[in-house]
């Protein structure tokens, strides 16, 4: 039996064991419910925006939200607004081809996935060490296969959560607003789900790494939250205007070891443009995980 097969078996078991646990399921349901609520709020915002625009422009109001936005997305004014926002005309032009609801869900997933993985996976290893169930596995497989299997099982759980959120977002938007490009939206939702999963993997590596280090359940949960907080504060601090102007070389360099330093890359349209970000985020996730594993490998579970 190859190590890959072993890892796949552990990952599959871990995924289904997590899904069967009420906590992970409740968190996924919460995330999906959040996606529905956020999408509904976004649709409402679009509706208010269109009503206001129709009033200002003295034109007839559309029956449902979205019709005017689809038109607006094709205007030069919108392009300039996007260009000002991202500071990159090629990226701005590319963003205009993405259905608004997909773009919104992308933002939503990028924002909340770190929190979701912290709560679903923050104690995934520590729980097994604390209960002792890890000991039933560690005389059957090597530690590295077990730990990598756990990481991939949790990654699968995260991916399922993101995709479920995307489906919920698509269904909600289809019910509440005009969307003449449902398939295009669905395709973009899948694309953004994949990108959110790559982004989330960096955080997953962090929280599973913390779980590998911690010696208790509460310790693992606390370490994951502290890690998330530190990454959040550190990454944003390094990207702040004051830091980048005061430390023009150091800040961007240090920023590369934080996930936020690469999230903009994931919004780019071509694979070649996205590749550096994808590689760095996956590498960061693996690096955080490896740091945790280095300690796990040396201690007695």
């Amino acid at each position, binding site marked *: *039996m190859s*190590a890959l097969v*072993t890892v796949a*078996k*552990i990952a599959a*078991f871990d995924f*289904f*064991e997590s899904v*069967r*646990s009420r906590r992970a399921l409740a968190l996924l349901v919460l995330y999906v419910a959040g996606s529905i609520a956020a999408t509904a709020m976004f649709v409402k915002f679009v509706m208010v925006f269109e009503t206001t625009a129709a009033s200002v422009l003295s034109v007839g109001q559309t029956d449902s939200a979205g019709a005017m936005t689809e038109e607006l997305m094709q205007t030069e004014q919108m392009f300039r607004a996007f260009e000002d926002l991202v500071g990159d005309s090629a990226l701005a032009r590319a963003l205009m081809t993405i259905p608004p609801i997909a773009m919104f869900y992308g933002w939503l997933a990028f924002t909340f996935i770190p929190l979701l993985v912290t709560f679903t996976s923050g104690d995934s290893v520590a729980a*097994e060490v604390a*209960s*002792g*169930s890890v*000991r*039933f*596995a*560690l*005389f*059957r*497989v*090597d*530690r590295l296969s077990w730990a990598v299997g756990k990481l991939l099982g949790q990654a699968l759980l995260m991916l399922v959560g993101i995709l479920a959120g995307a489906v919920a977002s698509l269904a909600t938007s289809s019910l509440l607003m005009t969307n003449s490009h449902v398939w295009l939206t669905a395709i973009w939702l899948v694309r953004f789900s994949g990108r959110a999963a790559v982004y989330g993997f960096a955080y997953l590596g962090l929280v599973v790494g913390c779980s590998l280090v911690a010696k208790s359940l509460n310790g693992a949960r606390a370490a994951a939250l502290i890690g998330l907080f530190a990454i959040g504060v550190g990454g944003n601090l390094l990207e702040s205007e004051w830091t980048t102007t005061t430390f023009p070389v150091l800040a961007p360099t240090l920023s590369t070891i934080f996930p936020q330093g690469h999230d903009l890359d994931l919004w780019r349209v071509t694979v070649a443009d996205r590749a550096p970000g994808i590689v760095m985020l996956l590498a960061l996730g693996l690096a955080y995980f490896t740091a945790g594993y280095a300690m796990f490998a*040396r201690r*007695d*579970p």
Partner: protein
Amino acid sequence: MSGPALALHGVVKRYGRLTALDGLSLEVPRGVICGMVGPNGAGKTTTFGIAGGYVRANEGTVDVLGAGRFDPVKMRGRLTLLPQDCELNPHTSVAGLLAYYASLQGMGRRAAKKDAARVLDMVELADRAGARVKELSHGMRRRVAVAQAFLGDPELVLLDEPTNGLDPELVVRMRDLFRSQRTKRTLVVSSHNLAELEAISDHVVFLDAGKCVKAGALADVTGRATRIRVRLEAPIPLDGLAAVLPGVTLAWDGVELVVTTESGGIAELNARALPALVAAGARILEVRQGDTLESTYLASKRG
């Protein structure tokens, strides 16, 4: 295959300032049921962990089945283990969990399912195969934990307090199960229930403060091969008996007469000593072969 199933030499294990194993050396021959005895904190669980490969020794050498330190990849399925006080994954079905463990030992999907059913049948839980682990009682979970140790065809099975928390009827069934494995594999069983260990073991190891204080075949350790204990209605003088029983030592321990032969077997000793005792006027109430494991253990503790 020759050599011991498990051999530890000079093994030291420290947890911070606490020394759990202090130069432990022991050998468990192949094909025996070995009872491991010791007070809490003697190092039994640590010894199992080191033998199972998931606890690292600070010093010393470990040899499992003649292949050196246990490697779960190279020696997959050759050693299995029932860890002490460990909970099984709670959300999966009993059969699913056992099939998963079997698959980690290298079995294909169909073989793993079949083997899971076999070991469940072995611990009389076939009717609970579809239940989730968390739905089982403590005793049932313990039986599932025991069952997982018999997945596949392991050469060495380490059972750390396997009957802990089981009711007396289940203890008897487990004992029968362990006995049924005698000719198939080596079992190392730790327990605080010495009568239970005595009933199944043919080799014993006494641990204390991280060291092996006594080890050997049960018959040798308890003196069953050379000694009988005779309970009399009243003490009798031993002076005259020594003359008619050459090669036999007689000693009064305050409660029983201890009769030890220097050569020959127990049957021969009985044939010679008991008629001589009756002829000397002794009224015999009970004759036992050797000492109990408990009394031997307590004697070893007293030094």
